[in-house]
């Protein structure tokens, strides 16, 4: 802006169609900052929402897919027989697609993260797992299966993680709702900030508005000029906010993939998903910048028209 003015002053190319509302002002820069921060917050919340939504879908999917039966060792029972019995009961239950018994070696392998490798687990009482794959989670009568197991295989224990998975998923869903509410609040306060800024700009540029009226500008022409001015500010602020958000997300993704490679990282990933926004997430983040700019232009247009209607 400043450079082009100097060009003009030094007699360079004919400067044409400069914005009729001065582009640079302290109020304008303040508004760009506010819009930038608001966009960042909005994009951040949408990103978190997408991650939580993704994680809760993974949980819900796993709920739909399988449950496990744990058969505990007992001194006076043969664990192999008990395991087979439990598997047979599960297989006969409605809604079950298939049953898979974790062999002894597999079970021991599962314990490795806790007990380390190289240990001879042969003499340790390691529980056995039966993974029950569900064809349709809704059809499964978990209570029936539980009762049958309790009656016929006392050492078997139905690990119905569906309940807490369901709770987690429900919690995630209410978090998403909360985020949408916060997002709405952020957008509303941004709209208000733009409205006040527009009113301020109209008052501050009253001289310009008067002159435009005198030289024969219609209200629509003036409104378009102000709208263009604020659209420009909105685009600048939106771009700054989106850039910050993308930087933040990619930093977060890098950190989380670094954590995932560290001990205990698997558990984090199981619980929270992969901390990945995916290209759709990034596309949505970028489009938030666009939405913010459009919102800025729209709000200022409405305010300008109202203001002009009260003029003279």
């Amino acid at each position, binding site marked *: 802006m400043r450079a082009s003015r100097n060009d003009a002053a030094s007699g360079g190319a004919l400067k*044409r169609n400069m914005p009729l509302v001065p582009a640079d002002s302290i109020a304008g820069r303040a508004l760009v900052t506010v819009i930038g921060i608001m966009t960042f917050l909005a994009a951040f919340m949408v990103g978190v929402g997408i991650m939580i939504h993704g994680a809760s879908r993974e949980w819900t999917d796993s709920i739909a897919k399988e449950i496990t039966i744990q058969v505990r060792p007992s001194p006076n029972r043969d664990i192999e027989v008990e395991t087979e019995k439990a598997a047979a009961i599960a297989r006969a239950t409605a809604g079950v697609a298939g049953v898979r018994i974790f062999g002894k070696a597999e079970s021991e392998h599962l314990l490795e993260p806790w007990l380390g490798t190289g240990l001879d687990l042969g003499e340790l009482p390691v529980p056995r797992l039966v993974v029950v794959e569900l064809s349709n989670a809704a059809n499964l009568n978990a209570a029936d299966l539980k009762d049958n197991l309790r009656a016929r295989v006392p050492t078997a224990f139905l690990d119905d993680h569906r309940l807490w998975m369901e709770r987690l998923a429900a919690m995630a869903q209410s978090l998403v709702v909360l985020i949408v509410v916060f997002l709405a609040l952020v957008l509303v306060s941004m709209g208000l900030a733009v409205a006040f800024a527009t009113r301020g700009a109209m008052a501050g540029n009253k001289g310009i508005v*008067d002159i435009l009226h005198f030289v024969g500008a*219609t209200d629509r022409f003036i409104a378009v000029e102000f709208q263009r001015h604020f659209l420009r500010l909105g685009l600048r602020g939106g771009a700054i906010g989106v850039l910050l958000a993308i930087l933040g997300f990619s930093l977060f993704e890098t950190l989380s993939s670094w954590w995932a490679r560290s001990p205990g990282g698997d558990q984090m990933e199981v619980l929270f998903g992969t901390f990945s926004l995916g290209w759709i997430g990034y596309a949505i983040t970028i489009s938030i910048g666009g939405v913010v700019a459009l919102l800025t232009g729209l709000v200022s247009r409405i305010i300008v028209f109202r203001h002009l209607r009260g003029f003279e």
Partner: protein
Amino acid sequence: MVRFESVGLRYGMGPEILRDISFEILPRSFQFLTGPSGAGKTTLMRLILLSLKPTRGIITLFNQDAKTLGKDAITALRRRIGVVFQDFRLLDHLTTYENVALPLRVQGRAESSFRAEVVELLHWVGLGERMHVLPPVLSGGEKQRAAIARALIARPDLLLADEPTGNVDPPLARRLMRLFTELHKSGTAVVVATHDLTLMDRFDSARRLVIADGRLQTYE
């Protein structure tokens, strides 16, 4: 073109600045609007521009009662009137060229369609070398000429000039007056507000509208 019938005006609750004003401005006419400083010349021009509403009386512009005009009609009328404000009212962040082109730009015309016209007018008022400059850099006389060029660019039917020679030295004042008389000859109605008696004496034959004590007298 412009007709005032028993027009009165007061600002807010203040005294009546203009009282029972009646006159007419005919097409292709030339007149001075005069009176001491503070007499109400600027106020009268603002009434013609419809930027003030009269407290009493009827103002008719281009055969339309001003009271009945909507915003679009007012805009249409203003496009037929060129104004030179006492304080110029140039936009400081636009170049001289852009300021002069403004009345055409707000009509939504493409810049390429009027560029040559604007540049020609700028040369005609002696601002050819100054068209890329921002108004704060211009001298008083240059601002005056830029303001006049802006008032003329859309070829108005009526030109209102408020103290157009108030800020310039006598030779330039004479040049500007020549510009207005030429404009008048080419068919534009011209109203020049001034309290400069020596200036008017050089145009002895011109019509004079004189405001004193809130009343207006016409000397043909």
